[in-house]
């Protein structure tokens, strides 16, 4: 994986409103945005960014590309992603919202077969403060540091970053994995990456109700993650109701499965279920965003103590 200030970045859908707005912002953050692709706009420039009709033309002109950030509209995004993978790009950040889940299933089959990293869709992407920004993170809320942030949401991630920055706790990297039903990379995958990342000392996990991602994350942290993790779950006081792809029968079935396999009796996808899973894995959990910095400081202190000579 190559995520650094040197990464060469392509923007697909650069002439979509979101692409055209954030392309220049990404560039201003230090990202090496080397080209854009938007069929029909080939030959033009967005500021300094040359635009091509095909990914292969961009590669022919610029050379190899490490990462693409996709802003292409929902029903054309799968095609854009497949084009990128076919041309050898192995890191995709998909910002687009509203991609049909079955398109994502198709994409994931190809991504897994080619070992391509996919982030998103419907996410703010990745920011390494001071080095690069891939997506829509507002750089003004971030500052460089040692806290790694993994989140399902967009604005809530910025809120947490703001709290941390204001408390003097800068961020090593912040990843929005998206909150759609089918996403390219999961909490466990990114926990693993941050566990191995030299810049990151503490990890903050920002979750929300719906799905079982946080429960899976809690289990993974207990089993495989060495660095301290602090969590926050949004939606404690919100009722989630039935998920889209469930009937009453399937809801009952998934509850039965969960209470059989997990220690929790709480309904899958609820805040109770996630909080119980985090508690079981002994992961300190904040009750509100403003409590996160204190928990992070505590974790950093105990890291210091651990490394003190006996």
């Amino acid at each position, binding site marked *: 994986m190559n995520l650094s200030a040197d990464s060469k970045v392509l923007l697909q859908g650069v002439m979509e409103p979101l692409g055209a707005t954030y392309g220049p912002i990404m560039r201003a953050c230090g990202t090496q945005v080397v080209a854009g692709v938007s069929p029909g706009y080939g030959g033009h*420039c967005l500021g300094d960014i040359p635009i091509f009709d095909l990914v292969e033309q961009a590669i022919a002109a610029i050379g190899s590309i490490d990462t693409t950030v996709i802003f292409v509209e929902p029903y054309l995004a799968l095609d854009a992603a497949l084009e990128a993978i076919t041309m050898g790009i192995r890191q995709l950040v998909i910002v687009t919202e509203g991609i049909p889940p079955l398109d994502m*299933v198709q994409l994931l089959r190809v991504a897994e077969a080619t070992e391509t990293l996919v982030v998103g869709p419907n996410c703010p992407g990745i920011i390494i403060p001071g080095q690069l920004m891939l997506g829509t993170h507002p750089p003004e809320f971030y500052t460089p540091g040692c806290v790694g942030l993994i989140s399902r949401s967009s604005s809530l991630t910025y809120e947490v970053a703001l709290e941390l920055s204001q408390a003097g706790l800068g961020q090593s990297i912040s990843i929005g994995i998206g909150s759609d039903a089918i996403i390219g990379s999961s909490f466990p995958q990114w926990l693993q990456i941050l566990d191995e990342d030299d810049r990151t000392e503490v990890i903050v996990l920002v979750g929300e109700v719906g799905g079982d991602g946080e429960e899976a994350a809690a289990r993974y942290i207990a089993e495989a993650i060495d660095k301290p993790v602090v969590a926050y779950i949004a939606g404690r006081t919100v009722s989630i109701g039935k998920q889209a792809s469930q009937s009453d*029968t399937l809801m009952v079935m998934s509850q039965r499965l969960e209470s059989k396999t997990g220690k929790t009796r709480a309904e899958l996808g609820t805040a109770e279920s996630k909080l119980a899973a985090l508690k079981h894995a002994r992961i300190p959990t904040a009750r509100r965003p*403003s409590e996160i910095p204190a928990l992070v400081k505590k974790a950093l202190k105990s890291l210091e103590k651990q490394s003190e000579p006996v």
Partner: protein
Amino acid sequence: MELLEYQAKALFSEIGIPILPSQRIDNPRDLKGLKIPYPVVLKSQVRTGGRGKAGGVRFVANTIDAVAAAQTIFHLPILGEYPDVILAEAKYDAEREFYLAVMLSRSVSRPVLLGSQHGGLRVEAAADEIQQVVVEYDFSPFYARRLAIKMGLTGTLIETVSDIVEKMFHLFVTYDLDLVEINPLAVSVNGGLMALDGKVTVNDDALERHPHLINLLSGGHGSPLDMPKRESPFKLKALQPNGQIAVVCSGSGLTMATLDLLSQHGAESACCLTLGRSVPTALSNTDVIPTQGSTTSTSLNTTLTNGSSPLTELGVNPPDPGSSHPAIPVPMPLVMTNVVNQLVEHLRQSILDILQSGDYRYITVVLVNILGSVITSQDVVQAIADLCNSNGFKTNGAHTGRTTKFVIRWASSQPPEVKAELQIQLGDLPIYLVDDLDEAVTKTIALAQPLTDL
């Protein structure tokens, strides 16, 4: 979006999943022209569950009973939902009832096939018996066969049941469905199969690319399809009718977090307005106007290319095939002023709509917490100030005798003098700028005094 049973069965019929002869009844009178021989079953067409127990399914043996039963059913709400349509269906003698479903599993990011021999009303009690097959790679009939065998089927049923599962899967991928469920799949003494009930849910994001489904969903009701509105980037959700607080946030995660904070203090929110992706889905000609934008973050420093007309209107000529990369600049500002203006206008209007709506009569405070690059805190202040100064702004005086107040969470990298200056400029408008989210929440609650304090 969930299809009604008769719509789901229309899809089944198209693809060859066996269904009973049936007729759509919009009015009890329609039963006089019933083409199905008695006895028939009359079924309430609603999306809510439990219609059988609630009396929404009735067997009738003649026209008089049928008309009476239909009248009853049309006036019978099932969990609050009244049917617009009743389905009249032939009766079927089932020896056994199976359960079959195809759905998308979030945990494994793949479609899964589900089945059980314990279908019908017993299925929930026997939920442990439901078998599952994950469709790991591209679909092939053997996946359906695996399910049939896992279900414990033998002989000809293996093929006939897996054939139905294949057809369900085909519908699933053809129409971007979230769920296809047949419960019960009736099995006759001879091994014949019949889908007695069907449930189909279409993925909301994908619906627009299926004109056939849109047609099916809106056909014959007279009322237009209730599609999620995409024009406004703001989504409104009702919470507690007597709530005095309205919450406006960017992103569903932040909305939930803000609502959580209010709840933790015991406050009741009437509704929440969430800003989705803060840029419209299509660039119109008027959007492409170069300017510095209404605010610029001091840390950003980009060169702007100036041009003064949208590409299309200019009729900008394509470059010479020979030249390598002529820098015909696409005029594009750092932050498109028109986009920001549109959003500010949507924000103002959406809040005004809430305040003027009869559904939220007790709102006395609006808490706004919007974080992002495109629409900044200053833009928000502008929107609210415009709102307060507009003619359309009504106080909620009728019910509470007090003016609606606004707490705006100020999240900006601008120096503190900017906020202080702005607060002064706002004068005696009921707008409060607060840096810290926790403080914004407590301020909001303090401003929303209990009604008994009047």
